[in-house]
């Protein structure tokens, strides 16, 4: 039996394999302890890297006050829908503005500079709804990811969560499951694979977990402990101190 290459293991982790190749790799991992160990190492390396890079975003010099109000677009809305002379004038202005923006101290540069602000939100990508995995921003104050269940199964794994994190789990009629962060939880990292969302470092704030009613099974696992499972049309909280079953459940992480 030939072992999986490091490139294949990395691609599997990054969800870059075709469904057929991912299935083959998964079968191999379940039968090959050596490759399974190497895959865990790839996962650990990736988690270390992600956590390290996030530290760079904590640089206080990277935090600037946001502008009070954005000026009208300097690019000129609908500039191509005007007459020829206006088009020419607007074209000239546009390129003059562009050129001006390259001059230190120019008003255009200052305006552009005022708009260039860091935000802690994860990458925002447009993905078709048929994509197995999507990374989306639902609002400026909320971000998250969504996935399709794999074989009817959805797993949500929270790693490094703290008791200051509040989790709201709800059943949804959508076919996609998802995890959406708000407040300080937007600083968390999201990892996805088919039927799986992993959230790393959500220490405070709130996470909203959406679980499709159509999923045959779903679970929320926090630092290795199963907190919640889907049973039929209800969510069941499995914490030792609480035993609740409902369509929507709010809980906090136990220390």
């Amino acid at each position, binding site marked *: 039996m030939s072992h999986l290459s490091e*490139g294949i293991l990395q691609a599997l982790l990054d969800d870059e394999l075709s469904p057929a190749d991912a299935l083959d790799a998964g079968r191999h991992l379940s039968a090959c302890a050596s490759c399974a160990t190497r895959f865990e190492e790839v996962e650990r390396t990736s988690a270390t890297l992600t956590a390290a890079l996030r530290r760079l975003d904590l640089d206080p010099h990277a935090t600037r006050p946001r502008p009070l109000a954005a000026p009208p677009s300097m690019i000129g809305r609908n500039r191509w829908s005007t007459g020829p002379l206006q088009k020419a004038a607007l074209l000239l202005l546009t390129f003059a503005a562009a050129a001006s923006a390259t001059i230190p101290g120019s008003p255009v540069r200052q305006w552009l500079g005022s*708009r*260039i602000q860091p935000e802690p939100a994860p990458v925002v990508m447009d993905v078709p709804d048929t994509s197995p995995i999507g990374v989306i921003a639902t609002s400026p104050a909320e971000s998250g990811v969504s996935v399709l269940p794999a074989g009817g199964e959805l797993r949500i794994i929270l790693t490094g969560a703290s008791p200051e994190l509040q989790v709201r789990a709800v059943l949804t009629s959508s076919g996609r499951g998802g995890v959406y962060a708000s407040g300080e939880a937007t600083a968390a990292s999201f990892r996805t694979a088919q039927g799986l969302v992993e959230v790393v470092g959500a220490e405070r704030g709130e996470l909203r977990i959406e679980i499709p009613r159509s999923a045959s099974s779903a679970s929320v696992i926090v630092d290795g402990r199963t907190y919640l499972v889907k049973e039929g049309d209800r969510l069941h909280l499995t914490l030792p101190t609480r035993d609740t079953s409902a369509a929507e459940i709010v809980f906090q992480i136990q220390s």
Partner: protein
Amino acid sequence: MTAQSRPDGGEFDALYERLQPSLWRYVHRLVGDADSTDDVVQEAFVRLLKKPELQGDAARLWLFTVATNLVRDRGRTTARRRRLLTAVPLEAPSSTPADRRLERDEQIEAVRQALDQLPDRDRQLLLMREEGFKYHEIADAVGTAPGSVGTLIARAAKRFTEVYRPVEG
């Protein structure tokens, strides 16, 4: 869409709003200081104004590639600036206690030192992956075959962890 039909201001603004946070974070992670990041991100967007044919994901990949090249072009200046900033740290604009600020600065510096030990291509591979680019996009950006990106990322990540000495917090 033709070369003459550059998106109107609203569309460009939307593109800017969508791409700017990710590009800013990417460039900041590369160069390490906010002023240089501002300059690079601003220049990349100004150049995008002159590329009406670029839309959506193509515009995103182009922006990141241009920004990476700008960072490389400014390499020596930026590295020198960062060393100076490190030598004379600015007062953090927050009420964070001094010991926590020091600890945070040490953590940041540990990551920077590790990144600085990697070849340019490794840094680009790892940071683009962190921003959610797909392998075929990363392959385009670094000039390699999509089939080799997984291997390159795995090796780059391993090299990073071999030289990264995290500061315990």
